[in-house]
């Protein structure tokens, strides 16, 4: 695995996958907020999307201009093969490390 995924990058890639076809920034952010239960600042999301695309983990294409956006197009994202590989590697390493570990709080001896 040559690309290390940060935690937030990981979340963003998964959210893009979940949203599917219509994955532009607004629903991706909503997906993370509702599923992961944390608030996401728009600025952080945009810079992360940008970074992921530069690393080649995301691809993007432009949609059609829309009037409620002031005539601007949406930028739709999809996870590239490299991104999928990165996600798979991350899951494997987490699974591998999680195996046999109990996450219940340990009772103090005595």
């Amino acid at each position, binding site marked *: 695995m040559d690309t290390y995924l940060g935690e937030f990058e990981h979340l963003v890639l998964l959210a893009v996958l979940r949203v599917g076809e219509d994955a*532009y920034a*607004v629903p991706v952010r909503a997906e993370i907020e509702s599923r992961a239960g944390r608030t996401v600042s*728009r*600025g952080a999301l945009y810079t992360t999307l940008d970074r992921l695309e530069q690393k080649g983990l995301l691809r993007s294409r432009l949609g059609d201009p829309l009037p409620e956006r*002031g005539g601007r197009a949406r*930028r739709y994202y999809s996870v590239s093969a490299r991104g999928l590989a990165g996600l798979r590697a991350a899951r494997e390493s987490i699974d591998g490390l999680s195996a046999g570990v109990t996450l219940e709080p340990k009772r103090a001896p005595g």
Partner: protein
Amino acid sequence: MSDGGPPRLAEWLLRRLIRASPAADAVVGDLAEEHHAERRVRGRLGAAAWYWRQAAGVASRVLVARHRARRPAPSPFPIPGDSFMSGLWRDFRLAVRLLAHQRAFAGIIILTLAVGLAANATVIALIDGLVLRPFPLRDIDRLIQVYGAGPGTGLLANRSEISPADFVDFQRDSRAADLVALEWWDATVAGQSEPERLQGFRVSPAFFDALGVGVAAGRGFSADEGQVGRNRVAVISDALWHRRFAADPAIIGRTVNIEAEPYQIVGIAPPRFDYPYGSDVWSPLALTPEQLERRQSRYLSVIGRLRDGASAARAQAEVAATAARLAQQYPATNRGWGVNVMPLAESVVDLGAQGFLGVQQIATLLVLLLACANVANLLIVRAADRSKELALRVALGASRWRVIRLLAIESLALAIAGAAGAIPLTWAALQACRAAMPPTVARFVRGWDEVDVDLRVVAALAALAVVSTIFFGLLPALRASRMSLNDALKTGGRSSDSGKHRLRNAMVVVEVALALTLLVAAGLSVRGTMTVLFRDDGYDPEGVMTMRISLIGSQYETPEAQRAFFERLGEDARGAIGLDGVALANVAPGSPRNQSNGVEIEGHPVTDAAQRRSADIRRTTPGFLETLRIRLLDGRDFTTGDRPDTLPVALVSETMARRYWSGEDPVGRRFRIDGEQTWRTVVGVVRDVRHNWFFPDLAPTFYLPFAQSPASDMVLMLRGPGDPAPLAAAGRQLVWRRDAAQPVYEVRSLREVRSESAVGLRLAAGFMGVFGLVGLLLAAVGIYAIMAYAVRQRTHEIGVRLALGARPREVLATTLGRGLRLTAIGLVVGLAGAYALGSLMERTLFGSIRVDALTFVAFTAILAAAAIAASIVPARRALRVDPMIALRNQ
């Protein structure tokens, strides 16, 4: 925002800030889309606020990310073949990075500069709004005001109004300017809702053309409407149109009742036009044949527009020639009367404002100088700390010029940041000024509404910032560049260069001197204002509520009716419970209104017109002296027995008695008001009441019993046992129970009247107080910084002294002694500066301010104490130096 999209400015800013990002367009689009949804939930304003927040968040995030990804810091060394400009730019970026790493240091400097610059920008904004561009009129430099210049002396002697007959002659003879006349018109508009008292003016029909404003709707006045009987037409202000008539376009052509007469509204003035004095309604000035004969009563303001190619000097010459002819032709009324033509923009500036603002400007420049001295100090200290770095640069081949440039650019970066910080401070200061100015007074201050932080103010700020860079940046840079390479590298930053000490010492002296000047000026200003507000002006303003009633309607046209109304009102008020005193007078003491008249003293004829006597006139009911607690010094007060058919009597003030009956007892003597036949007998002498704080001399004043000299326009004064505020409602009820159609206005306690009359002084004192505190703080910080640095520099020496057995007290004395010596020199210089500024204030602020020794002594002591405190902390630290550590510290 009207199209429902996001706030345009925010969107534009966002787009510009993140335009380098590849997804910029999509980001802006996303936010627009979300804004669209937010609008439904939050409403227009809420969504706009939401958008601003989000745009700021996104932009800062994107910018930070980009900055992090940026290439490393620019090289601090010259790159061969680099152009001059890009070299400058690199130095600038380097300076910003350097300062960003020293946040506390840079923060203090930027804050200091911001305060100094903001003080200046605030006063510049006031001067710009009040003096340079007092109101939004086209070609304001082509407009003139014509004043009469009377034979007297004093503040207003050459700013007299013009009599109707003189005006007609001036107007006819003038070729250089088209002159128009204005007369005050207290217009009460009635009908539809409660009666409202408006500021109105009767104006020559050509008024709107002469000012070049025209009307926004309807028409102006035609020439024939300047005739008696045809002038029942009016133009109303845009503000009144919105306020009272709900911006109904159908108002034009309708008839409203003004002063119980029907007026047809023919036009609406352009928005924001309210010349003069916040006027709401204008009607043609129609002079009756009798009025056109009058040269004695001067009550018209005359303004004019210069014709093409004509100069103000020519207009002055023409009008002066006419005035000279009139003086010969009508010596009884016109002898000694000339004219005074000045630009309108100059004439509308409040007489006090120029001096007031001039003093403020000097004070703010001192604040800026002080800030610069402080910053220079910090930079010198830092340059000493950086001596090794700079020496290394020189050693590696940097020229002296190159080092100066680097330091100068650092200073410029600081100044720019300071100027940016000054903008919100200036805005806040102007808001505070506005809040402090009561609207009743602001109305009379031309241009008050225009005062704001605009591009001109920002440009001035930028210019000041650059200039101050020279002040605070140049000296340290020159000094740093001249250091000896050898010394800098050899010693541990310990300097043997006594020149550096000299410069720092000079800075302490300058700071103390400037701070003392500011503090004393502030002290004088505050003391002067307190004196005006709280001195004994001959009457007791506590607990008295006043309100003005101007009878309107044909039923009150006769003196009998006026007398009957007000006497009954007085009786009603006296019958009301809970009042300690009730009186009526034509003028409330301390109010901006006044009435005066020429008088003739029996047995003391005056031959020369230039020595004509005049006095302020007060029409009062019995109980006036008691209600205002004005002392009767001699004779008797008015009684209910002074009736229209009994002997005409009067009371006179001490000053009138002294001036017009010098050496004699005035009681029993008689005088006569110019233009009247009746001789009035003086029955008593009362204490002087100071009406205008800004006139150094007390005006001669006489009092007439209201029953013998009724008027339609009176002030009801009610004294209660405690807070006068609740008396306002009671007074209104009393009036309206008699006649519900009469407006009651200028409802104010006597305290408020006095406080409003001195609002300029209060503002000045507020400004000066802030400047003084800032000065004190800056000086203390500056002294502390220098002393702390000096102690740090001498750590080694002190350690040696202590190790060799010096007693701590001696070490303390030498350390402290130096700071105090410098402080003492600064105080002496500062006393001279304070005396100079104090004298200037004494001259420009109408003597409300007196240079007094107490203030000087008190503030010298305060500043000395602050200086001692600021030096004692570092000096004590010197004592705690452990000799071992100090000696090892090499």
